[in-house]
């Protein structure tokens, strides 16, 4: 018997779980399945460290958060989406407080907030520096309360069931037994997270392989703004483990090999002993990562066996503050870098961190494909535009997870029953999986292809890009796609066949990579995280627009552009440092900050 639900959620991370709870609360009679390739609490949301933005401080305002987000995104954000997001974020974070999230507090018991990069006010809620971990576990544990949620833990979705232009479920492998099953539903929400594993050096976990993006793309939904990949300026060399922006928000300095706070040379303000909003180390991530590359070109970075680095200096913060505010940073440095930030400089370098682009959705999380919804990092609504501000992603999971959940619930309440004929597609998929992954004796190692893809992407679509390298990358990816047809799978077991999973993930990654290069080639301007050396200026005339990549029948990409939604904030110049953006509401506060005294 094929299990059938009203809504199937793919992904048990922050977005997926929030959506599941939203559905259960909207209509307790709906049946919900959460399908996830790892146990939900292992989802990558668990790694998020710094915090989640939501206007709560008395001196803050909704408009300021909107403006910071839009300017941070270099005016590529849809402003209606940003408005909805900023309005709902505080409520969502508050809801999480009511569900038990251990937010750090002020001495009087209220929730504390801290400054964050690109933000003009203190509005980042945090749970020390394990914010994502606490949010995910709170959501997961709270989701256990709802009897209507059936979980498919460690089930790997390989395909969407589409019939009659309508998405009606998924096909998934139960990893423990290896059996392939259809799980049908009136609506499907993809919350599968990002795709950092397209690149060699990333903060992202092994599971971030863009599965949902490719699932949607193959089913006919377009991917939006795929050229915008965020590099985080401070990753540990070798592992790529993230040192959260909170380390800079609490007062850390970035210094080059001469001990010089080099950001002052890149239009990011003048150094002050204490952090200043939207200035120096609290500039946006795209600018900081770009500054690193320039600094490296000037020969002022430090060479290590794992590439060039600069130093993050936290020593002046003192042991007490480090332990209270960023204990995980200390733990990670001690464990993985064998140094103690209380006494030592931390070597850091830019690292692929976040995908601004994703499955194209409207502000309710609906994709153009009826029955298909998406939320979280897998989706692109878009509130992040050309560069996401730190601490905007976690609240995005909540706001748009909940929105997608409600929209899907409503859709499912009215949708026709699932057409039993879609189940036949399971047989096709089953056959494909058997033939592609068990039937054939290939020669190519999965790891080799993956390494080559990652190298290709770094070479052609790194922090700075240009047409020749991008074209070369496109050609190389094409060759890798062909070689993929000849991969070797040594593992013939059906029980927990992780090699088969790696092969499927690689194929998802390859498609995502192709869409990124296609979109990057088509965007002949520089904006936010997308910097073309051959088109160094922003070009609002041609490219104040989202790129939409669709898949042609032969597997090639088609890129279109569609205008950005502008409501009240006409495109302006992005200014960081002391030169404040115009208007009283957008004044950069040139005063020292200190975040809440709570732990």
């Amino acid at each position, binding site marked *: 018997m094929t*299990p059938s639900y009203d809504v199937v959620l793919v992904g048990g991370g922050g977005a997926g779980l929030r959506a599941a709870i939203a559905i259960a609360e909207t209509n307790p009679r709906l049946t919900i*399945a959460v*399908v996830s390739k790892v146990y939900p609490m292992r989802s990558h949301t668990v790694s998020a460290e710094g915090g989640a933005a939501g206007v709560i401080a008395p001196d803050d305002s909704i408009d300021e958060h909107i403006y910071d987000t839009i300017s941070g995104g270099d005016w590529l954000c849809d402003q209606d989406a940003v408005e909805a997001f900023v309005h709902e974020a505080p409520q969502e974070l508050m809801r999480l407080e009511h569900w038990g999230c251990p937010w750090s507090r002020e001495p009087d018991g209220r929730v504390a907030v801290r400054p964050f990069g690109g933000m003009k006010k203190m509005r980042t809620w945090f749970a020390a520096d394990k914010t994502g971990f606490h949010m995910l576990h709170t959501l997961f544990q709270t989701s*256990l*309360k709802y*009897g209507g949620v*059936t*979980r*498919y*833990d*460690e*089930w790997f979705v390989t395909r969407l069931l589409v019939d009659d232009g309508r998405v009606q479920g998924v096909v998934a492998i*139960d990893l*423990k*037994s290896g059996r392939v099953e259809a*799980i049908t539903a009136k609506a499907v929400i993809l919350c599968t997270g990002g795709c950092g594993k397209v690149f060699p050096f990333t903060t992202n976990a092994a599971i971030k392989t863009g599965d949902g993006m490719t699932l949607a793309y193959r089913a006919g939904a377009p991917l939006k703004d795929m050229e915008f990949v965020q590099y985080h300026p401070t990753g540990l060399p070798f592992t790529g483990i993230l040192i959260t922006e909170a380390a800079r928000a609490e007062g850390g300095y970035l210094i080059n090999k001469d001990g010089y706070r080099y950001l002052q040379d890149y239009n990011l303000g003048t150094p002050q002993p204490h952090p200043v909003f939207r200035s120096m180390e609290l500039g946006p991530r795209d600018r900081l990562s770009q500054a690193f590359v320039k600094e490296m070109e000037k020969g002022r970075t430090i060479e290590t066996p794992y590439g060039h680095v600069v130093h993050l200096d936290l020593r002046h913060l003192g042991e007490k503050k480090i332990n209270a505010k960023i204990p995980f940073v200390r733990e990670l440095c001690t464990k993985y870098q064998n140094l103690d930030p209380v006494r030592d400089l931390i070597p850091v370098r830019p690292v692929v961190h976040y995908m601004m682009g994703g499955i194209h959705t409207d502000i309710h999380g609906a994709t153009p494909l009826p029955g298909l919804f998406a939320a979280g990092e897998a989706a692109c609504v878009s509130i992040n535009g050309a560069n996401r501000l730190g601490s905007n992603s976690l609240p995005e999971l909540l706001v748009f997870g909940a929105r997608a959940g409600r929209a899907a619930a409503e859709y499912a309440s009215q949708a026709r029953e699932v057409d039993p004929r879609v189940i036949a597609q399971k047989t096709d998929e089953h056959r494909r999986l058997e033939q592609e992954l068990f039937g054939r004796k290939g020669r190519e190692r999965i790891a080799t292809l993956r390494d080559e893809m990652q190298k290709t992407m770094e070479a052609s679509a790194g922090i700075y890009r240009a047409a020749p390298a991008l074209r070369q990358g496109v050609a190389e990816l094409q060759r890798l796609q062909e070689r993929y047809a000849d991969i070797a799978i040594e593992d013939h077991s059906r*029980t927990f066949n992780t090699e088969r999973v790696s092969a499927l993930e690689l194929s998802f990654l390859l498609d995502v990579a192709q869409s990124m290069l296609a979109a990057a080639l088509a965007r002949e301007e520089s904006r936010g995280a997308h910097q073309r050396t051959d088109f160094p200026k922003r070009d609002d005339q041609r490219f104040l627009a989202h790129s939409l990549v669709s898949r042609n029948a032969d597997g090639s990409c088609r890129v279109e552009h569609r205008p950005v939604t502008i409501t009240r904030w006409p495109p302006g110049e992005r200014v960081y440092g002391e030169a404040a953006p115009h208007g009283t509401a957008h004044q950069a506060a040139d005063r020292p900050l200190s975040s809440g005294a709570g732990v």
Partner: protein
Amino acid sequence: MEQTHTYGDTPYHPRWLRRRVSTYWWLWKPAYLRFILREGSCMFVGWFTVYLLLLLAALLEGPLAYELFLAWSATPAVLIVNVVTLGFVVFHAITFFQAAPQAMVVRLGRARVAPQTVLLGHYAGWVVVSAVVAFFLLGA
């Protein structure tokens, strides 16, 4: 309200490998052995309680029985048992007191008393009690 949860996964598969814990699991690593010795200390606590009852019985019977008891207690077998018992009851006392701070949170007003302080408190109590007992017995 009863929570009924359904799971998509296989609850148990006969092919999964289930390994029984060996009867000698406590020999696997030093910490387990220490645990078993700690638990085993109860046998010595029990033995010494019986020993005390024998002493009381001797006292009740009269001076001669008391002398016999003392003589018996000096026989090598009993002496050896009691030396071992001493080791175990000291071990018992230490492990039991060590566990105390983990089990209880002592508060003075709003502040939580540091675990080390709780532990020290126990040791101090131990010293005082031992001194009092010794004082009376050595004076008797």
